[in-house]
């Protein structure tokens, strides 16, 4: 593994994603100019990081350099997937992803030290430390006693997906019915455009990565809009952690297409202000998303076989 961290770090990638989100919410079309100053004030940062973020977008051919200076949008922001921030050679992101992969795969234990992982991945102390900080930000690690870091295995174990659905079933419908829920119309409109693009696809050309983005953005939007900061924080943290974790299981395209239609239905009810109905649809959506695949089936397996007995 390369021990050298590159200059591009995940914060710039996050900012690049934010620029695409802003462009989407403002309904910008390919060819439109991305003004640095306007972006800086919309994203609440200075122009220097904006320039870095635009360079990342240019490298990925999502914006093009304008002959008169600055950048032009090169794609429809509604039609593209979320930016990957685990680019090869990006030291800390790579180690961050490797730690999660190895934890999920049962290769490393929950309790770790910087030194131990430094040896395992053959990288600098700083790189491992930065990866731990990022994991802590995503609620996937916390400091233990002394030199220890505790990785949260429960968040990515085999049962994590089922437990996550259980948690979301209790919270997301509730978030939709809180009295101060505020609809973010520009964000909803941008999201709907992406969902409609997905609706036009079939099982063979379904864009899973675009679906992943709309799924994340949709659930995060509900969290952000709920009007209760405690609920918003809890749900946001949960979704961020969900996104950061290695994917659990394999969901086929048919189910994802259904899921996209359910998202559209819920969004429509939110737009109409029918929040109770939106909450009911959310309940149905989450329950349908829980995989019902049998965990054990075979000849000679008695019908009343209950795995929970174990």
């Amino acid at each position, binding site marked *: 593994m390369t021990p050298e961290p590159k200059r591009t770090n995940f914060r710039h990638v996050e900012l690049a994603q934010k620029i695409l989100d802003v462009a989407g919410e403002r309904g910008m079309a390919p060819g439109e100019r991305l003004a640095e100053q306007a972006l800086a004030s919309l994203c609440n940062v200075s122009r220097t990081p904006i320039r870095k973020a635009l360079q990342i977008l240019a490298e990925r051919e999502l914006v093009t350099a304008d002959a008169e200076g600055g950048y032009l949008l090169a794609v429809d922001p509604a039609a593209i997937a979320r930016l990957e921030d685990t680019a090869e050679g990006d030291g800390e992101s790579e180690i961050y*992803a*490797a730690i999660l*992969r*190895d934890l999920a*795969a*049962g*290769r490393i*234990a929950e309790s770790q030290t910087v030194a131990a992982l430094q040896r395992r991945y053959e990288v600098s102390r700083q790189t491992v430390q930065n990866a731990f900080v990022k994991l802590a930000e995503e609620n996937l690690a916390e400091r233990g006693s002394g030199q220890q870091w505790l990785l949260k295995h429960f968040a990515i*174990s*085999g*049962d994590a997906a089922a437990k996550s659905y259980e948690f979301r079933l209790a919270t997301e419908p509730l978030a939709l019915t809180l009295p101060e829920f505020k609809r973010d119309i520009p964000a909803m409109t941008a999201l709907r455009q992406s969902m409609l693009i997905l609706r036009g696809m079939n099982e063979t050309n379904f864009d899973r990565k675009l679906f992943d983005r709309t799924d994340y953005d949709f659930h995060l939007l509900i969290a952000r809009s709920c009007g209760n900061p405690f609920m918003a924080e809890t749900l946001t943290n949960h979704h961020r952690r969900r996104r950061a974790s*290695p994917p659990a*299981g*394999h969901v*086929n*395209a*048919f*189910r994802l297409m259904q899921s996209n239609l359910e998202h559209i239905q819920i969004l429509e009810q939110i737009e109409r202000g029918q929040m109770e109905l939106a909450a009911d649809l959310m309940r149905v959506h989450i329950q349908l998303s829980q*995989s*019902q*695949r*049998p*965990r*054990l*089936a*075979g*000849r*000679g*397996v*008695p*019908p*009343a*076989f*209950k*795995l929970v*007995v*174990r």
Partner: protein
Amino acid sequence: MGHRPVFICHPGFSGVFTEYGFGEYQLGDDTSAPATDWNDFIERHQDAFRQSPFDQLQSYVGPTWDAIVDTAIRVEEPLRQLVARLKPDVIVLDNVVMFPAIANAGVPWVRVVSCAETEIPDPLMPPYLSGCSETPGEEWERFSARYREVTASAHRRFSAFLGQSGLRPPPTSVFLEPSPYLNLLLAPKIIRRKRRNVLDEELFVFLDGCVRHEAPYVSPRFASHNEAPLALISFGSLGAMDVAMIKRMIETFSKLPYRFLINAGHWRDDYRDVPDNVFIDDWFPQPSVVEQASLFIHHGGNNSFCEALYFGTPSIIMPYCWDGHDNARRAEETGVGLHLDRYGWSENELASAITSLMDDAAMRARLKDNAISMQKAAGVKRAAEAILKVATTMPSTGLSVKA
């Protein structure tokens, strides 16, 4: 193709078909029955799985036929009601036992021979589930005689049950006769057996494999050996219970220059200290993984074996019950893989079995050629067309049912 397929299944399969967008009807489970003691089940069967096919007749095959006959009797009434409600044009039976509700439904029924080809017996073929070689010998008769003994009580009950439903009893040891309309067999040419009584081509259609299409599988990143050839290990959801044996295999895998994907089913979280070249999950979209794999280690289940052949992937078969024994033997006889005893292997034997198949360029080339012809045969489409041909000989209501 203009017909609407719906599935009738045991509650244990709930969700399998809806996930692919098909209608699904379950035959009610009797929830008042006491739950089976899990630990006892594992202990009992893990012992049985260590025995020879002959010894399993007493410990596993007999009791399993008893359980299958019990199920057939229990679901008869709900199945009859459901079929009456669905009014299908044709019923496709993918099972090992006859259901009177299907025979008496008044519409044609198609049998899918879901096990190895030995399920349709012939004097030139070793007995079903015996794992015997293709050369006739005393052991054939010995096995058949014992099979008749251990299935006798289940067969008596089953014959009486069919009689009550107005059907004639099947021949000794037989629980499902061929359909008079159509029978579909998976066995591809490369492993097909010689028969004295040649099967009627109109009634018995060989599909040369029948493999479902899954979305492409993206292999996870391993902590090492990311460019190395890939092996898939899956013993089915039941075989995954053998955690100790799989852990022994993993020790061997850790020393080999390949990547290993292991289907651990329900027991995924039982594995710790997983080596860098091993990845364990509770489910894989198997056909898509087999397509990418250079080796498939499995239990000889008929679907697994056919998927390996369909994608030209050599098999190491480590059977533990049922037709796995027949497929393991057949794989060796026809040179499409190796048979390895499920428990009686040393680390060296497992490692050399894996390495020899990974390095066997001649077998690989032959399997790839065979895969091309199997894929050309388009078994899935052929099966659908054959079923619909049967369906259209009767007045149509636009529905077909698979049970």
